[in-house]
């Protein structure tokens, strides 16, 4: 489920361009093509299917050899275990999901609130060394989290941000900000500056002009950008596992990973937790898919 944001950006237009040439031999696809696609689909979807199956099997069926594809007893016990602790009350996993929602939500809002005005400024104003600044901003994304996590761990320990939701929110915001600025700059560039000029001559201040005329036109772009930021924060694993330890702070990815290991692993619970974890992003991305593709191609391609 680790959807990298950068890959996702390029995926949209590429898919668009290949569509017309895809048709072989008139209307249908060739047998070979269908066979290859089927193999590909099975390979790609099998882990997902297996995850879903495991999440609804009883424990003895999970370990059955040979594996049971059909005809096992369906149970919702694992899903109950995800949310409810063995002795009653909320489970550690449910707290982790809540933490994930808070951390991902707040960091996305922060990145958007900071990034949109920054993108506007880079698009509209004669900023000194604009290209160098933008390159510098992007360069903060050149290194993967795993490379920078140790220095950040040391810094966080000094300032007391270790094992706190605030710490995670800050690092995710910092990580999402370059992406937000770059993507939003593309969207702002698309909106003619003359709307703001005209509004200023009408008697509005520059900020009022931005809010009244430019911002509403940016909403689709903001939505698309925010979804990508949200997906990144929701899925992020490396920072989360290094920088947090207690159950009350940990987000879902390290919490689910923590279920594996020890003397026995409750694969049913792992699978159920994974399904619960994957579902929101899948559903959300499906709901806004038109917006996403339209938004991404508009901002990135029509330059």
């Amino acid at each position, binding site marked *: 489920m680790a959807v990298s944001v950068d890959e996702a950006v390029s995926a949209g237009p590429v898919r668009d361009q290949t569509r017309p040439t895809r048709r072989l031999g008139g209307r249908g696809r060739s047998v070979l093509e269908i066979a290859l696609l089927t193999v590909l689909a099975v390979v790609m979807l099998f882990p997902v299917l297996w995850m879903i199956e495991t999440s609804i099997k009883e424990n003895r069926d999970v370990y059955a050899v040979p594996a049971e594809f059909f005809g096992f007893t369906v149970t919702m016990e694992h899903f109950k275990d995800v949310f409810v602790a063995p002795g009653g009350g909320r489970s550690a996993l449910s707290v982790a999901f809540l933490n994930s929602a808070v951390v991902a939500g707040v960091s996305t809002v922060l990145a958007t609130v900071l990034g949109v005005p920054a993108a506007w400024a880079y698009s509209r104003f*004669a900023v000194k060394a604009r290209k160098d600044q933008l390159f510098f901003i992007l360069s903060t994304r050149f290194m993967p989290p795993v490379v920078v996590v140790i220095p950040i761990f040391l810094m966080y320990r000094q300032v007391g941000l270790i094992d706190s939701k605030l710490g995670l929110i800050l690092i995710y915001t910092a990580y999402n900000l370059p992406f937000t600025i770059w993507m939003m700059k593309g969207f702002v560039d698309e909106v*003619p500056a*003359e*709307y703001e*000029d*005209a*509004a*200023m*001559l*009408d*008697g*509005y*201040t*520059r900020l*009022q002009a931005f809010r009244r*005329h430019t911002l*509403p*036109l940016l909403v689709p772009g903001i939505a698309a950008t925010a979804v990508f930021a949200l997906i990144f924060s929701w899925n992020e694993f490396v920072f989360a596992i290094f920088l947090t330890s207690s159950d009350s702070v940990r987000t879902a990815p390290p919490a689910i990973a923590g279920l594996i290991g020890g003397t026995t692993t409750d694969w049913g619970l792992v699978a159920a937790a994974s399904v619960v974890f994957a579902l929101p992003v899948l559903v959300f991305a499906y709901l806004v898919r038109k917006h996403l593709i339209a938004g991404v191609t508009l901002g990135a391609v029509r330059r």
Partner: protein
Amino acid sequence: MGTVAVHGLCKSFGKVQALDGVTLDVPDGSFFVVLGPSGAGKTTTLRAIAGLEKLDAGSVHLNGRDATGDAPATRDLAMVFQSYALYPRHTAYENIASPLRARRCSPSEIAAAVKQMSSLLHIERLLQRRPAQLSGGEMQRVALARALVRRPRAFLMDEPLTNLDLKLRVEMRTELTRIHRSLGATFVYVTNDQVEALSMADQVAVLKEGKVQQVGTPTEVYERPANQWVAGFVGSPPISLLACHAEGDRLVGAEGWTLPRPRWTTAEDGRALLLGLRAEDLSVEQRGNASLSGELYGLEPLGDRTVVDVRVGTEILKVKARPTVTGTPGERLLVTVDLDRAHLFDAGTGLSLAEAGR
């Protein structure tokens, strides 16, 4: 109502010097046209007056008060953009009402003002439409209404007619002149169309490469161009320029022709000059004693007149003639020159000579 004065405006975009010391003085109530080819700095000048462009040097005075650093909103100006810049999400009504809303006018005041403007510009039935549902001419009228709906110190117009088709453009020219008269307001109007400039302006400033070439009434700019470039830019067909020098009481052309030396010129003998002759000051009919000999090069019938291209040596003279004129290329012709209306320029500096003598 008010005056607009800019002094020594300088602005560069990277390596391009868009404005290089532009100084203009727009009197109260005048229709002031800034004329120049694209890239001359006309729009930048207008944006500097509006406060949309940060200047490298120079000052902007409105009603005699220094407004150089003021925000656009506080300058009390209205502007029509070349692209119209109508707010795409708002109806025509809301677009026109925008300047009044910004000034917190009451809804009844706004309704009355919008109604008055829309009837003046004949756009009453368009008020509920959005810009995307309007044609170019309709958008232009809405943009104009948005500017005219209040009474600012001055109206700034950035090539508002450029995107219209020819018929509409001619109509709107008359319309704008009428509106200017009825309002008695100060208009600063930018265009690259010399016909617009000559037909609408009280005062024309000709701009080239960020420098003011000449300021004057349309007649002055046309009849007494300050330099060779203005002479060439203003006027259609363009003025014909012939290299020559003075020799005693004659002008001797580089192509070998001679003409009587115009009485008014004081140029010393031998100095390299350019003789500027407008098409209407030349004739293919025998009318005077000053004439040039050449051969017919081509005919451009334009309906009401025909432009005859006459080759003198290696240079082409454009001569205005009756629409009935005929001829075959290569035919010998005598072109009569009205030397009293000719122009002489210094070939080196391009500056006009001896204007004082006329």
